[in-house]
């Protein structure tokens, strides 16, 4: 641990070339937090006054209990490089002192929003991969996210100790495993080639891959060994590093390097010969208590142990020896400092991703140059609950300028549109705070390139925001974060005692703030809804809600509820017509399903209301086979003007049509938000206005006549087009040994899931199974699976797509019909079966 005063820390913060902001990302259980702990133990900055018994990683009790990280936590590290090791560093630097702001993020997929929030404020990522389990689904997800944010990755192959102690594999086999892990990671990275970011793949021989054992606190990069051997072989370090990886073999008998295994028993791969074997030897000697052999070996390696440590035995001794010989902090921190960009470097290419406004204005330039004298540009990525209940720190990163205590800032919320006043506040920062371990220290100001927490803004920021100086009225906000998960699982919450309602309302408000992903809303029926990414996520949220945000007041939660979508299977069986209340106007309409992939294209924003009509009609005609003219006649998208349904005008030569367009659009928005089946959103339906008969007097074809009529005709055309429900489906990835497969399959079958990929991980007894599982069936899936496989299978579920339910909701007694009846009952609506008659007027 490094003891610092706030002033000392603040001083380093000015050296923008000597800062590294980085996050630790990985699949769940690959050892992020353990590895982080060993870094913090060595280099964590704590306040001078409280040095002694501060436990840096002391976080939430439930995190410890479950053994998983839930919230991302940020910690600053300090590292001083030796002149010698900086010799080969080419980049700019100011002295040898480095400040590393490290954010440990959760690995469970339910909390990947925390990862997203962490990535936004960092420039580099340490990707941790379990050497046995290899690259898993969440590794891939977070890596993809990181590269999308232009975060440069370095890799560490973790849990090396398993190779030596648990699996006892020999050198060549281990090498193959590591090689495969690195290759898999590189495959993902290669698909995200980005010319500005350059080559993001990792290479052990270039020092961008480390090998670590987080649990035992040791790690190395090939640099460490190259340094050791370079002088011995009389070659320079870089050359030596290349020899230590890949197809380079050394035969001690002939003292010759070859590019192929010569076949002699003494000929071994460079990596095995010089890295793996020595470690293995040391570990074995320690574990077998062959102390007499150990001390001379250590002496040769230049490792000196303290005398009291010499009394240790077995594992404890091994740990101690390895930590002294190859301390994890040195290897990893040096790798980060060498290969991850400083804010000054990173912001040059990140500005394009970050800034929404023109890339040549003052703000873009300030971000690009990481200019401490420029205008303030700060992105608040998350809100952290403060110790005094109910308040929050706004936590974020300064991209340019300086934020200081008392500064008046413009807060641009996620819905802010430049030039308007929506979602815009001007308030002053009460205090700027930096974290020193668990303790917050107030500082005068924080310059660009650093992370900062601010007090006094929490009443204006829901989840994230862009801050700038008060007078910078023409600044555009920093782009909002895009999350890889969506809140698909919902529960209704209610307080046990009716008079606690104000507490619940207040609690929900705070909950919404504390988590980037959770959504607190209210249903038509008046129930408060909390929506999260998964079952675990919701469980944690509700626990927080009750214990932290409501002061323990009791709440009742409903069973998890899933939202559905309504769609159609085919074109309406006939043109349907609806008359206006005054019977003077008629609308004729047909519904048909949108072409495959079109709804997704609308979701992704490739096609939307703001497109240039020409560009849109090009995509529609080329990719989806639309008629070019027709593509120009799209009236609107819905619900919420951007949803995956549309109204198209197919009328020919109808008078006054332009006049009622707005009314039809309003009726459609209304209808597409609450479909006729279960009052759920519609999805993937195209409504074609076939003909319109209108009264000649404008007064008789006003909104009052047309809006309700349009809604009815939309309903009717959907109901005649074989309406179907869409249910959300998870992509489940499960990793388990062979003997657990039977259990996995039976649980999946029982839960209407189906496996579409089963693959053995090369070199391991583990199987990787990918399956689709309806979200409705996923409640309790984890625990059932664990029970069925005696705890050997652990699933990761991510929302993947909407799947059509094959049964007909209009057919009494079918599965879909039962479901619809249930939803309608919950929403307090009327019974379904009378609906069809109600809406359909036949022509």
């Amino acid at each position, binding site marked *: 641990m490094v003891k610092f005063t706030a002033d000392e820390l603040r001083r380093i913060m000015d050296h923008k070339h000597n800062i590294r902001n980085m996050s630790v990302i990985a699949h769940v259980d690959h050892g992020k937090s353990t590895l982080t702990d060993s870094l913090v133990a060595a280099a964590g900055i704590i306040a001078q006054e409280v040095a002694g018994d501060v436990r840096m990683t002391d976080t939430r009790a439930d995190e410890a209990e479950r053994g998983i990280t839930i919230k991302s936590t940020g910690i600053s590290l300090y590292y001083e490089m030796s002149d010698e090791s900086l010799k080969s560093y080419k980049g700019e630097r100011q002295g040898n002192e480095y400040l590393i702001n490290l954010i440990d993020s959760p690995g469970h997929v339910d909390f990947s929003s925390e990862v997203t929030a962490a990535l936004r404020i960092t420039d580099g990522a340490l990707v941790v991969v379990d050497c046995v389990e290899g690259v898993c689904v969440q590794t891939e997800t977070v890596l993809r996210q990181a590269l999308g944010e232009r975060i440069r990755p370095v890799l560490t192959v973790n849990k090396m100790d398993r190779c030596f102690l648990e699996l006892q594999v020999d050198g060549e086999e281990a090498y193959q495993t590591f090689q495969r892990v690195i290759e898999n990671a590189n495959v993902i990275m290669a698909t995200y080639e980005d010319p500005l970011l350059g080559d993001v793949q990792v290479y052990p021989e270039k020092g961008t891959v480390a090998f670590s054992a987080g649990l035992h606190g040791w790690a190395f990069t090939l640099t460490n060994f190259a340094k050791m051997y370079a002088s011995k072989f009389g070659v320079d370090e870089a050359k030596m590093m290349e020899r230590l990886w890949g197809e380079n073999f050394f035969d001690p008998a002939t003292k010759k390097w070859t590019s192929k295994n010569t076949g002699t028993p003494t000929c071994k791969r460079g990596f095995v010969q010089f890295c793996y074997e020595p470690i293995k030897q040391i570990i074995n000697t320690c574990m077998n208590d062959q102390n007499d052999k150990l001390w001379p070996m250590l002496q040769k390696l230049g490792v000196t142990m303290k005398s009291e440590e010499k009394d240790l035995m077995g594992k404890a001794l091994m740990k101690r020896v390895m930590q002294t010989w190859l301390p994890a902090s040195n290897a990893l921190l040096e790798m980060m400092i060498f290969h991850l960009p400083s804010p000054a470097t990173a912001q040059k290419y990140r500005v394009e991703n970050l800034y929404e406004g023109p890339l040549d204005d003052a703000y873009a330039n300030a971000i690009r140059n990481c200019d401490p004298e420029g205008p303030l540009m700060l992105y608040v990525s998350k809100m952290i609950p403060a110790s005094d209940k109910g308040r929050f720190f706004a936590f974020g990163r300064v991209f340019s300028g300086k934020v200081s205590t008392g500064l008046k800032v413009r807060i641009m*919320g*996620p*819905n802010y549109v430049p030039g308007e*006043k*929506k*979602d*815009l*506040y001007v308030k002053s920062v009460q205090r700027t705070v930096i974290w020193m371990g668990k303790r917050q220290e107030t500082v005068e100001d924080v310059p660009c390139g650093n992370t900062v927490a601010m007090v006094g803004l929490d*009443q*204006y*920021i*829901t*989840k994230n925001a862009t801050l700038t100086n008060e007078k910078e009225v023409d600044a555009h906000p920093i782009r909002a974060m895009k999350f890889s998960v969506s809140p698909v699982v919902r529960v209704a919450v209610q307080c046990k005692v*009716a*008079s606690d*309602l*104000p507490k619940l*309302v207040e609690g*929900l*408000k705070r909950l*919404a703030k504390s988590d980037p992903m959770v*959504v*607190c*809303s*209210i*249903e*038509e*029926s*008046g*129930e*408060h809804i909390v929506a999260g990414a998964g079952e675990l996520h919701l469980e944690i949220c509700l626990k927080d809600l009750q214990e932290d945000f409501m002061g323990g007041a009791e709440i009742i939660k409903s069973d998890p509820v899933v939202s559905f979508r309504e769609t159609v299977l085919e074109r309406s069986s006939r043109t349907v017509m609806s*008359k*206006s*209340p*005054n*019977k*003077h106007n008629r609308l004729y309409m047909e519904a048909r399903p949108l072409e495959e992939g079109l709804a997704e294209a609308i979701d992704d924003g490739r096609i939307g*209301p*703001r497109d240039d*009509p020409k560009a849109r009609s090009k995509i529609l005609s080329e990719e989806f086979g639309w008629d070019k003219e027709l593509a120009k006649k799209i009236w609107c*998208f819905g619900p919420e*003007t951007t949803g995956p349904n549309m109204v198209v005008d197919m009328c020919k030569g109808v008078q006054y049509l*332009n006049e009622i*367009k*707005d009314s039809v659009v*309003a009726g459609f*928005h*209304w209808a597409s938000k*609450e479909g006729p089946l279960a009052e759920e959103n519609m999805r993937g339906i195209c409504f074609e206005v076939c003909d319109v*008969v209108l*009264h*000649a007097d404008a007064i008789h074809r*006003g*909104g*009052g*006549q047309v*809006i*309700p009529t349009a809604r009815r005709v939309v309903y009717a055309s959907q109901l005649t087009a074989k309406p179907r429900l869409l249910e959300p489906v998870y992509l489940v990835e499960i990793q388990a040994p062979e003997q657990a497969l039977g259990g996995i399959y039976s649980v999946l079958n029982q839960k209407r899931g189906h496996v579409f990929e089963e693959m053995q991980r090369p070199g391991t007894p583990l199987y990787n199974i990918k399956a689709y599982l309806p979200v409705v069936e996923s409640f309790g899936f984890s625990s059932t699976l664990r029970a069925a496989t005696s705890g050997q299978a652990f699933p990761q579920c991510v929302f993947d797509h909407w799947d059509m339910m094959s049964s007909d909701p209009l057919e009494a007694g079918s599965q879909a019909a039962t479901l619809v009846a249930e939803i309608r009952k919950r929403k*307090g*609506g009327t019974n379904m079966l009378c609906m069809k008659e109600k809406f359909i007027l036949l022509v």
Partner: protein
Amino acid sequence: MDLEHNFEIARVAEFILSHGFTRVALQFPDELLRDSMRVVKALRRELNSSVKLYVMADTTYGSCCVDEVGAAHVNAECVIHYGHTCLSPTSTIPALFIFGKASISTSDCARSLLKYGLECGKPVLVLFGLEYAHAIPEIKSALLSDASCLSGSVSTSEHLFADASCSFISPSGTFGPANQPGSIDRRVENECLDEENSQNYKIGGLSWRLPQGRTMEDYSLFWIGLDNPAFSNVVLTFNSCEIVRYDAKEDRLIIDLSQQKKILRRRYYLVEKAKDANMIGVLVGTLGAAGYLHMIHQMTELITKAGKKSYTFVMGKPNPAKLANFPELDVFIHVSCAQTALLDSKEFLAPVITPFEAMLALDRGSQWTGAYQMDFGDLISSTPSVANKQSEEARFSFIQGGYVEDLDLHDNDEVEKDEILALVNVTEKALQVRDEDTRSLTKTVAKSGAEYFASRSYHGLDINGTDPVPAKFLTGRSGKASGYKDENTHR
């Protein structure tokens, strides 16, 4: 049907004669209209020819209120109101209410009541629809005799009956917060003055006093009558009490009232929704109930204070087609008597809320606590509590799931600062270049009717029409709107 008995001809005649009225309006709801001529004839027989009788039907607003405007057309001196009523105080004309007499089996009712009283173990407060008011004394006596049969357990159950108020209402003159009409007892007042010996309650023409030290929560409510607005009113107002309903027609006790409780939650949602509204319509739903004008003013003031735009509408009974003519409005406030105020049909494009709910939604200091009021008479007095404790915090919207700002608060400040430039600013805004293409497909949040109109794709007839040649004459459709002549071929 026993006309004489049901319509209380003798009592009405006596009332008219004793007050010396010469022009009398008789107000009938639609369902009793067919009896109106017989009633008039019967009354004629009792009265001399100097008294002029007018039949009023098809009221503009709810038929439960006295149609004072209709009565004023014939310069009537008093109104005789028949049928279901909300007993809202009138503002100009005295009125006599004839509740009608629905049939009820008093002994069955008394038995259910007794049984319920024993089961619930709490004192029972008996409330009833006014059409059953005539039977209450009988039920009371039947109850007593039944109870004496079961003498052992009588002491454990206790019944309190509400009284139907006097069926004659005379206008209370000027109505305002300072001048409370005597007929409106203040619940709030009672809560403040705990020392008072008893508490008076009044709802929809019923009144009762609770003995000292008792609160409404101590009682179970027993409602005799139909599941009508009057009952909803009781359920919503006393939502923390246990309530059962005795259906006289089917002689059945209905205990499960979850549907009614759902209404309350639904109202809560509507309040949340109203908080997000930018433009609010005030629907005038009565021209009779005393204090309605005051209420309308209070509402528009409240809306303006909350930084939103208000529009006032007079449109008779609101229906979805009428309200959908104003798609720019996000919510409507329905100012009307307690029993017609609740309008919740999903057919409405924008929700319709009551003045009480509007107060909850628009006054930043207030909170939904579960207490509910229907009668706006009760609200007027509570207005001054609009303490302008402008909370600094931005408002959290559950509909949108985030913080939203009520914009106009700031706009107002600005306009005040440079009043001179106000006009310039407005015209400047009007002359903004708008993108023709995007406008039609995106929905911007409009803050006033004019802005909404500007965002529409159709702005009325285009003076600079593109085609200078006049259109050709065409033969139009013929036939009836419900099925034009040319439509037969369609079919």
